[in-house]
């Protein structure tokens, strides 16, 4: 009975929260008061796709990766180079970039997932350093440290995504689609296999789960999410340089995932939003000391709310609802 009540509240309030979020998202770029946040929210949606991939990999499957910005950068640069230098259709460029990032993740996935824990973290960190250095040093292709500008925008037929509002709706469509697809995966046979690997690799194998196959598959999916986010990023900003794809950016992605809740799909969005809003609205005042503040946030959340703010808040809210429901119920 108790579980029935809990499930009911969870559902009703989850639907309400989702509807409220959608309504807010639609209102922001159209309202004269809130439209100054359009750009910030656009970048939150792009970042959230990268964070989401990390949550699937780290939070659900238990495989640490500090390398997600490598795939983010691969998507960004392949899209930029193909569409600007070679005049390829931006959508096709995005598709090629995603396929390349996925293939790259697949190829390095089998050797890299022979490693566990700290060793896996170090190897994925190495990946970021290698890719970042390539972006900076292959000047004739990537524009070096100065980057490339004048990257074309995306369009469908006569609809051009060249204003803040149109880009905002485009990017959020991708982000919400990725969130919903991921939610469906987690609630399926595949999702159970991923969570089983996190729970106990030996037990997962004993129920017929092929460890390396599932680890590599979710790694590929996270790479494809990151790559698409990278493509959207360059077609939105119409400019690219190596800076957003380095080591610090990778640490930021981990911070966003941890703050939201590693094992939580919607926590990925929530954590990204919290960290980005903080960095845009508050942390600017700290100048270059902001990285210290990120470190502090990471530590405080890990110590006091290890399941992440999103999960922490949701559970607190549910307990409060249950308590009220019990008090109101005639005994």
């Amino acid at each position: 009975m108790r579980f029935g009540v809990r499930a009911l509240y969870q559902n009703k309030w989850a639907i309400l929260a989702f509807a409220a979020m959608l309504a807010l998202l639609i209102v922001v770029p159209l309202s004269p008061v809130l439209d100054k946040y359009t750009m910030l929210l656009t970048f939150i949606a792009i970042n959230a796709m990268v964070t989401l991939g990390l949550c699937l990999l780290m939070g659900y499957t238990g495989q640490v990766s500090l390398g997600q910005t490598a795939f983010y950068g691969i998507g960004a640069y392949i899209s930029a180079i193909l569409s600007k230098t070679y005049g390829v259709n931006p959508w096709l460029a995005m598709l090629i970039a995603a396929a390349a990032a996925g293939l790259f993740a697949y190829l390095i996935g089998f050797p890299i997932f022979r490693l566990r824990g700290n060793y896996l973290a170090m190897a994925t960190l190495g990946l970021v350093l290698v890719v970042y250095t390539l972006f900076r040093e292959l000047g004739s292709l990537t524009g070096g440290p100065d980057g490339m500008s004048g990257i074309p925008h995306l369009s469908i037929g006569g609809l051009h995504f060249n204003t803040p509002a149109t880009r905002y709706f485009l990017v959020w469509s991708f982000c919400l689609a990725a969130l919903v697809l991921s939610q469906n995966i987690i609630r399926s046979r595949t999702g159970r296999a991923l969570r089983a690997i996190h729970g106990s690799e030996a037990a997962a194998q004993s129920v017929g789960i092929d460890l390396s196959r599932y680890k590599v598959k979710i790694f590929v999916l996270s790479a494809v999410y990151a790559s698409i986010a990278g493509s959207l990023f360059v077609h939105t900003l119409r400019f690219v340089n190596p800076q957003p794809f380095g080591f610090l950016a990778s640490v930021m992605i981990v911070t966003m995932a941890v703050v939201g809740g590693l094992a939580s799909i919607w926590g990925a969005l929530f954590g990204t939003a919290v960290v980005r809003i903080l960095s845009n609205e508050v942390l600017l005042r700290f100048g270059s000391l902001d990285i210290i503040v990120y470190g502090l946030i990471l530590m405080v959340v890990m110590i006091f709310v290890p399941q992440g703010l999103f999960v922490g808040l949701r559970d607190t809210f549910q307990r409060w609802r249950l308590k009220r429901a019990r008090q109101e119920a005639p005994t």
Partner: protein
Amino acid sequence: MSSPILETKGLTRTFGGLTAVDGVDLSVESGRITAVIGPNGAGKTTLFNLIAGVYMPTSGDILFEGKTLGKSPPHRRAALGIARTFQNVLLFDNMTVLENVMSGQHPRSRYGFLEAALRLPKAHREEERIVLASRRFLNLVGLGMYADRNPASLPLGQQKLLTIARALATEPRLLLLDEPGAGLNALEKQGLSELIRRIQEMGITVILVEHDMDLVMGIAEWVVVLDSGQKIAEGTASQIQKDKKVIAAYLGDEEGAG
């Protein structure tokens, strides 16, 4: 009841200089409850790990239903019909009790990332079937009312039953139970014996490694005794209890020989 479901031939596994399993020939009759006993360090769990594919034999061969298992990895053996539980439980604490059992249905369902992500009808149908089957296995071990709980919140006895339900959910023909009675009280052991008999009635061959002699003598129809990696005796429970070599292995050589 006559053909062996599992055979090992000269099965040997060494770790560095230590021979954990040493030339073991086994023939496990289909449908018969078989117990593997022996003092600590006799190689019982290593034998299980060899059958389950966690370790590969140094030499020798394992045949399941007449076919060699070769170097096939654990997950493929689960799909072939070999299930197991672990001495140290190893439940998935990041899932509910029911989801733990549902994960056992993994090798008996076939839908992947794409069907799941897009919620195609096939995924829906499969999920409904998996939930129904898993509830049946959960009820079989008597944990139906704890479906939505976290497994870590259950007492050890129920956690062990849950690992059996998870193993049964893989729909095996051979079930390996690694010390299922350890840490259970007398009443729970009684229930465990009944459960193992019911599993036998389902047509599943059970092999158990167990230290509890009352449990073993009560349910095992065939007992294999290992000592220092070698098979020193096998037979019915009453034959084993009278075997001189077995008594020697358990009580120490001097007393046994005298």
